């Protein structure tokens, strides 16, 4: 499969639209001024994900996952190092604590933030394609990236869209990663549909 720069640009644009909506919602919900940016989007082989240092440099990660099924299938997730996640959540909820950590309530809150981001990104993609997908419940998982991806896996994955996302609020900057991991053949379908949609627009 050949992935050209145009396809990456289209995906970057859709993800940016999604995170922009997510940021708007988070701002309304929390009363904070959060800014969400995706400065970098890359597409890589699932097998190469394990060599992706920026995702794997932490032994333990917090992830909010969302499985989707349809003409293209896979799993979308928002991943943070737990310390960054705790800092983000305490900033969003306005808590003032010296050493932020993730307890049951903050994990729930992170689940909602991840749910908002995942839904906005998936919504942005399915809207432009006029596509209907079936989704699982949003799930919070903790562990290494391998443990997170392997949890409940029943299919083989093929390609990964990796989007480095930057959450900025007040003087705080937290970096997370949006990942969309596709089952075999699914990314081809998505790219083909994107090209078709682009063709229709032209």
């Amino acid at each position, binding site marked *: 499969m050949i992935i050209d720069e145009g396809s990456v640009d289209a995906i970057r644009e859709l993800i940016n639209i999604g995170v922009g909506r997510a940021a708007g*919602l988070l701002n*309304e*919900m*929390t009363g904070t001024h959060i800014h969400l940016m995706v400065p970098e989007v890359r597409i890589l082989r699932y097998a190469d994900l394990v060599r992706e240092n920026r995702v794997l440099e932490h032994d333990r990660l917090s992830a909010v996952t*969302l499985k*989707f099924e349809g003409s293209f299938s896979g799993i979308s997730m928002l991943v943070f190092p737990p310390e960054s996640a705790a800092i983000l959540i305490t900033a969003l*909820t306005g808590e003032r*604590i*010296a*050493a932020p950590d993730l*307890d*049951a*309530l*903050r994990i*729930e*809150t992170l*689940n*909602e933030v991840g*749910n*908002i981001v*995942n*839904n906005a990104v*998936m*919504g942005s993609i*399915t809207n432009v394609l006029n596509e*209907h997908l079936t*989704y699982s*419940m*949003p799930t919070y998982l903790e562990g290494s990236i391998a443990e997170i991806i392997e949890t409940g896996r029943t299919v083989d994955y093929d390609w990964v869209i990796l989007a480095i996302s930057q959450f900025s609020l007040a003087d705080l900057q937290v970096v997370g990663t949006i990942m969309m991991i596709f089952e075999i053949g699914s990314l081809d379908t998505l790219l083909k549909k994107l090209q078709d949609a682009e063709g229709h627009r032209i």
Partner: protein
Amino acid sequence: MRHTPPLPQGEYYDALPLGVVIIAQDYTVVYWNRTIAEWTGIPSKEILGSDLRERFPNLKDRRYTLRIQQVFEGGPAAFFSTQFHPHFIRAPLPGGGVRFERTSVHSLRERGEAHAVIFIDDVTELVTQVHAFREMKDRALAELEERRRKEAALALANRKLGLLSSITRHDIQNQVMALKYYIELMREEKDPETVAELLKKEEIIANAIEMQILFARDYQDMGIHAPLWHRVTAIIGIVKEALPLGNISVVADVGSLEVQADPLFEKVFYNLIDNALRYGGPGMTTILVSGEETPGGLVLCVEDDGAGIAAKDREHLFTRGYGKHTGFGLFLCREILSITGISIEERGEPGKGARFEMRIPEGKYRYPEDAP
């Protein structure tokens, strides 16, 4: 218009310990399970067919409608956490108070129409336990901090004990020997002028011993009590009252700055301003106290426009016993500041004035907003 439950298995939802509500796209309630009826006190027959937003106006807010709309359009489930949405459907507790809820909203197509199924979990017990856990953790952290402070105070006390004993043994003993020597000389001396000279020297020694005893008292007190938040402008005001300023103007340009430091923090400013007054020279007109935030923390400066400090003196300035007066002042300043991790150095220009910079780490200073 009467709506019927769109799901034939709707009755099974009655057995669940969850609140279950099904709404049509216009928010008309088409299903209201037994649990949510018990929690809210609203029976199913009373609410079926009515707009859920009229009974629970919080759901008119865009924070809900935008996300629920995406569910109606077949999007993924929307999850509403307890922290951001504690009472999705307000449900009182029998003993008073309101239930804490965790809610998810799911898409459902029934007979070709879009619906949303709302699942509400009562997490009041969880919230109570987590809050109790957080309080317990905060207490444990505070106790740990107190223990750390006590250990540091103990280490400091040991260091001080060694130093105080060396002051009494060496410094005072040397002075006493000199005093005895002058007394012996006086016994044999008949010339009144020489006797007067010797008396002057004895007085200087007595003053030096007094200074050493005063230093020992201050040094003994240092680090014993927990650090406090000090308003810098208030300290400068006290120091200005205590020192003979003459025509020298002392300006504090620090706003509402507060610094967390040993209770003897005031002595730092007393010593720095006293030093400036003693050695600034006749050309000195102003002593300025100012603060500047930097990426590593706050730099708090005490500077003057006097004679400044010679480069050769700079590296020994904070050494005990070094200096023209007692040799204790700047040493004491450094020791007092170091208790809360504040460093001090002199960075003025000889001939243009002295400039003492205190580097205060993040978290050890603040600017209270309500300050006058």
